[in-house]
């Protein structure tokens, strides 16, 4: 029952989605100040133990769990317990939020102004809000928004204030804390700060987990954190992290709470504020450090049009029903509950599985704008397209996407060409349109002569920016696309051959896309089902046969995955020279730039420049044992396993997508020598 409630893959068309309300509409007609100062009486959790932020601290410090860890740390390190307790108290001071309604009101006022300038509309599904209102009263709630922009958590708190819901406490990275004033302001609006890494620090972990659990147990406020851990620079969902998920589920596992409601929230943007910043970051320009002055400089963004923003509150997912039949809670019976326990293997698997499913729910509820379809097509046609054929193909793609269950926000009663021209206008900085011909290109590039390397860089920024929109719809096409590629590379039409190939691809791309581990068969069946329903394939008992009319769909689907396949093919070769891991990204970039210049015209490999893709590819090769980590002295180097790479190439290379593979590989060989 639980997994069915969580995600039903078989009938994506039947997915009922709520309708949206524009919340800015009212803001444009009434006073923001009065709004910010209005009476705020949130619905509360029925089991709430009333408690002030300052009291929280003493509850946490007095808790059996923390006391136990303090004694343990003290006996291990030899410091006195008072000393360790003092340290714990300092950690807590650094971490804790100090939620203040006045600060929230200030934010509400400024954000109202900002949102009205930035966005045409901010749309929220009010049915989701009503469900949340219900859920908040019944059990402690954990909010799990997707993370694409800094705007996300500001918007979340803003919305909860607006709908008289309890304000969340938000797990935020330490980076914000260093911002003057702003860090403290965020703290006072409910953010608490955690270090990015504290792997071995027992005390830190204890303080942190106890702090979160205490708030959850008391029903103090909804806990909000990002499953993906960080903002996704590519607009693809990131492989979820399970640490915090474990912390918020543990009170249920240990019987301290009857249930916990997880509420996945999907926040999507028609145009992302950080768009080009992300592209630059992916190309190796480090992310600007969060600073107040940086924030002030960034107010330039206020003058631009970012279209609409959508926030979709998903159905609350009960942890209790999720765990049914999967977790035996009695495994926690034999130790006092204050003693920290590492999650058991099956708990770990459950957490991982749940995290993936929650991210898939987030993906499924992301609103897709027509521009996403256009971006997909433009990326497949680097030489540009005529407006008329663009309109025609967009329309075709639209129907395909809808059939696959995409949550597409296509304006009603508007001609296709009209919709397209609107989209193109909003994203004009990525395009050049001349004489009915649209092409992705640098528009605001400096007119002065640039080196070829710089030109590649600017073009790459445009391509990667555009790719970030295409990535938004990848989850819709992913499974059928994997099947399409598998069919082309498999030795035969036999079902098990195709499945093996599908499984191999799925395994290779498991860091790249959200593919629940262990769902291989289910994904395969889903892909078959979708393509069969579309009339592209015929799935017989032992064979999978392409229908006569299916060629164009299959070609489209496999070219969706092209950039990734190519990227993964480039990567192992860049590593042939046993690059030192620490210098990995820089060297790769320099190398690839030259490579792209050489190959331009023939290849569309800009996406291979993305550090995200390289990182994922490396992870995949490590997993597939094509590359090994070798420790030489203090340095970790990567060693290529030639045999494994060759067999990988055999499998990948068979795909006739890369028709020019021979010349491609030979040029690669040249560059190996060059380096």
């Amino acid at each position, binding site marked *: 029952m639980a997994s069915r409630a969580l995600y039903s893959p078989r009938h994506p068309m039947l997915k009922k989605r709520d309708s949206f309300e524009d919340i800015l509409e009212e803001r444009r007609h009434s006073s923001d100040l009065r709004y910010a100062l209005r009476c705020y009486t949130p619905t509360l959790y029925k089991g709430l133990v009333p408690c002030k932020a300052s009291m929280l601290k003493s509850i946490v410090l007095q808790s059996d769990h923390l006391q136990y860890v303090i004694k343990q740390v003290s006996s291990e390190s030899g410091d006195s317990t008072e000393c360790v307790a003092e340290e714990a108290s300092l950690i807590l001071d650094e971490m804790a939020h100090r939620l203040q309604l006045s600060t929230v009101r200030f934010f509400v006022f400024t954000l109202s102004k900002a949102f009205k300038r930035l966005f045409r509309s901010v749309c929220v599904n009010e049915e989701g809000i009503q469900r949340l209102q219900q859920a908040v009263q019944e059990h402690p709630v954990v909010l799990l928004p997707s993370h694409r922009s800094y705007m996300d958590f500001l918007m979340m708190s803003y919305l909860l204030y607006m709908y008289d819901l309890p304000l969340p406490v938000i797990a935020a990275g330490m980076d914000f804390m260093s911002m003057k004033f702003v860090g403290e302001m965020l703290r006072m609006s409910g953010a608490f700060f955690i270090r990015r890494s504290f792997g071995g620090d027992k005390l830190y972990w204890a303080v942190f987990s106890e702090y979160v659990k205490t708030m959850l147990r008391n029903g103090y406020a909804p806990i909000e954190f990002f499953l993906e851990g960080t903002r996704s620079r590519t607009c693809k969902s990131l492989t979820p992290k399970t640490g915090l998920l474990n912390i918020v589920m543990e009170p249920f596992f240990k*019987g*301290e709470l*009857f249930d916990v409601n997880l509420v996945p929230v999907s926040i999507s943007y028609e145009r992302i504020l950080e768009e080009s910043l992300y592209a630059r970051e992916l190309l190796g320009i480090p992310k600007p450090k969060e600073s107040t002055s940086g924030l002030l400089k960034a107010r330039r963004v206020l003058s631009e049009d970012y279209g609409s923003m959508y926030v979709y509150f998903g159905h609350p997912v009960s942890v209790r029903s999720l765990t049914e039949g999967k977790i*035996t*809670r*009695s495994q*926690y*019976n034999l130790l*006092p*509950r*204050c003693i920290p326990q590492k999650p058991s293997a099956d708990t770990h698997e459950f957490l991982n599985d749940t995290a993936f499913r929650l991210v898939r729910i987030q993906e499924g509820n992301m609103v897709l704008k027509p521009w996403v379809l256009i971006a997909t097509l433009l990326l497949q046609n680097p030489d540009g397209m005529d407006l008329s054929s663009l309109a025609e193909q967009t329309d075709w793609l639209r129907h395909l996407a809808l059939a696959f269950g995409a949550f597409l926000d296509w304006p009603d009663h508007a001609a296709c060409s009209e919709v397209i021209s609107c989209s193109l206008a909003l994203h004009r900085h990525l395009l050049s349109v001349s004489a009915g011909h649209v092409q992705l290109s640098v528009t605001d590039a400096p007119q002065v002569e640039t080196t070829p390397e710089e030109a590649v860089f600017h073009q790459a920024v445009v391509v990667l920016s555009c790719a970030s929109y295409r990535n938004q719809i990848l989850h819709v096409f992913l499974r059928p696309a994997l099947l399409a590629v598998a069919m082309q590379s498999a030795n035969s039409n036999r079902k098990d051959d195709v499945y093996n190939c599908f499984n191999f691809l799925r395994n290779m791309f498991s860091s790249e896309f959200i593919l629940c581990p262990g769902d291989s068969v289910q994904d395969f069946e889903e892909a078959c089902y979708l393509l069969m329903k579309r009339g592209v394939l015929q799935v017989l008992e032992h064979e999978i046969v392409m229908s006569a009319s299916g060629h164009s769909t299959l070609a489209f689907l496999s070219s969706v995955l092209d950039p990734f396949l190519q990227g993964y093919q480039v990567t192992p070769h860049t590593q042939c020279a046993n690059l030192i891991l620490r210098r990995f990204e820089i060297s790769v970039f320099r190398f690839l730039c030259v490579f792209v210049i050489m190959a331009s015209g023939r290849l569309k490999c800009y996406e291979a420049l993305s550090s995200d893709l390289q990182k994922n590819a490396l992870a995949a090769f490590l997993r597939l044992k094509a590359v090994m980590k070798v420790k030489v002295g203090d340095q970790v180097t990567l060693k290529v396993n030639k045999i494994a790479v060759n067999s990988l190439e055999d499998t990948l290379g068979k795909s006739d997508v890369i028709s020019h593979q021979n010349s491609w590989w030979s040029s690669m060989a040249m560059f190996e020598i060059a380096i």
Partner: protein
Amino acid sequence: MASNSSSSTAQQRLRIIAGHLQKRPEDENASVAAQECKAEAPRSEPSSATPVPRRRQEIMKWNGWGYSDSRFLFTKKGQAEFTGKRYRLSGLILPSLKDWFEGTFGANLQHRSPATPSLNLSAVAPPNLNQPFVEDLKAAGLVVSHDPEDRVFRAHGHCLHEVFALREGRIGRVPDMVVWPSCHSDVEKIVELACKHNVCLIPYGGGTSVSSALECPREETRSIVSLDTSQMSNIHLKDVFIMRCTAVTLTLHIVSLTAGSETLHKASTPLCLSRNTFPVRLLNEHGYCTGHEPDSMEFSSLGGWVATRASGMKKNIYGNIEDLVVHIKMVTPRGVIEKSCLGPRMSTGPDIHHFILGSEGTLGVVTEVTLKIRPLPEYQKYGSVVFPNFQQGVACLREVARQRCAPASIRLMDNEQFQFGHALKPQVSSMFTSFLDGLKKFYITKFKGFDPQHLCVATLLFEGDRGKVLQHEKQVYDIAAKFGGLAAGEDNGQRGYMLTFVIAYLRDLGMDYYVIGESFETSVPWDRVLDLCRNVKERIVRECKERGVQFPPLPLSRVTQTYDAGACVYFYFAFNYRGLNDPVHVYEQVEHAAREEILANGGSLSHHHGVGKLRKEWMKESVSGVGLGMLKSVKEYVDPQNIFGNRNLL
């Protein structure tokens, strides 16, 4: 109540007994309010030395709890009344019960669900007799019966589904015959013949099981013989003698009253030192007691206590059955098992008593038990403490346990149970008492600021010599004060204990009006008590909702025993089943879910009700596969033919 003993010491003891019963005539007139709610021993002296007749159905209900003449009913005016003359509550009007009943369950006195008035004999299948066995029994001079009424009476315990089926007149598999041994050698003979002729024996004691332990296994094809141990007390009545008398412990040898597989349950009076169960009465006449007072004491049997690992209300002073037992004699198909001496402790490998304690009638028939006895306490006092909420109450009980100063009994009722207890307050006869009640309520809720929807009550029973009791009382009230507890008088305390004795009678009343319910229990470490109570209650509410129960269910919890390492928690759970097709099935599903929740929250499978057939499925999980294997191998050795084939436990 007293026997006419000539010695002055005996008379003094009798006064003490009378004191415990609080039946002083002058009190009766002076303060009705303090008395009338107190449940108490039947007033009539049992005339015969045999406490239980062979045809139990002549004095007891065939399809409900307890004596036929004692039951709750709503009068035409809509007032609740308890009939009969046996109990202190008998004949009294309970004015607030109706409102509580209707308000809590959404029940209505117009909507009745009456029971089938009498047993339809044609519904009982004809007995499947093993003729040679019957003849051999008769030749040995044993009393047997295959009367349908006798057989039906011994085919069930008091689980909800069992009683519900009887009320509807549905009779399932029943024993084919009843046999009444009257001494140890009778039992030996019966077991020997049963082995010879391969019949299935099911020991039957008091019949108060709530674990489906007495149900005849459906898959059993042999003739099933119910071995009723009630007549065994008869012969050895005069044999009661005091074995050893030291300053601390007295040991009494009792020929077993009964033996069997029933689980302890419910319904005794709090003042049950003078039950007509013979050993207890006789003991008391000699100025002693065993101190073992399970709630079902009125009906359950000594053999049953042993066979289920029973626990008594006053275990804080006297211990549970395993602490009280000095010696056990049991007849098994392999022969008789017993120890060779009465030493208080032995290091002779695993204690063989522990194979017998809790064996639930799967290994043999307990025929003799030697129990420790103690002098009757000089003084007894009830008490109660009101806490602002359940958390504080549990914290207080935990502290009491930590300081090891628990009184004979200390129980903590949650808010709902406190309100339930309140609904059982008899009509107040004077303006003054009702004024006093009002004042008390005002003080607690308004002056002390306790929320009537959250406050909860601990009930206390102190025992010992007068000076020590008063000192002890002060110590406990001082601890309670640290947790915000206010002393709330003896009356509340006593009413709390009365609740446990009338609850089974009340269930019969509920079942007349579409309300079904039952109790279950567990034991759990201190740090999990609160979470377990909350989660189990919430699970019950959720499951009822999911299964289409139209009215909100009533789950109640009570911390009923304290130990160093944890507590015993007792749940009552009832709901109005109007609109449901198969209410018993729904009930069973909900109870099943509640048990899963208990186990998931660190509770045990059972504290004292036992496993029976109802909770068998969790045995392996509870004691591990190896543990279960150990128990099975004992059964395999002792009873390879599965003569004691009630299929409990394993």
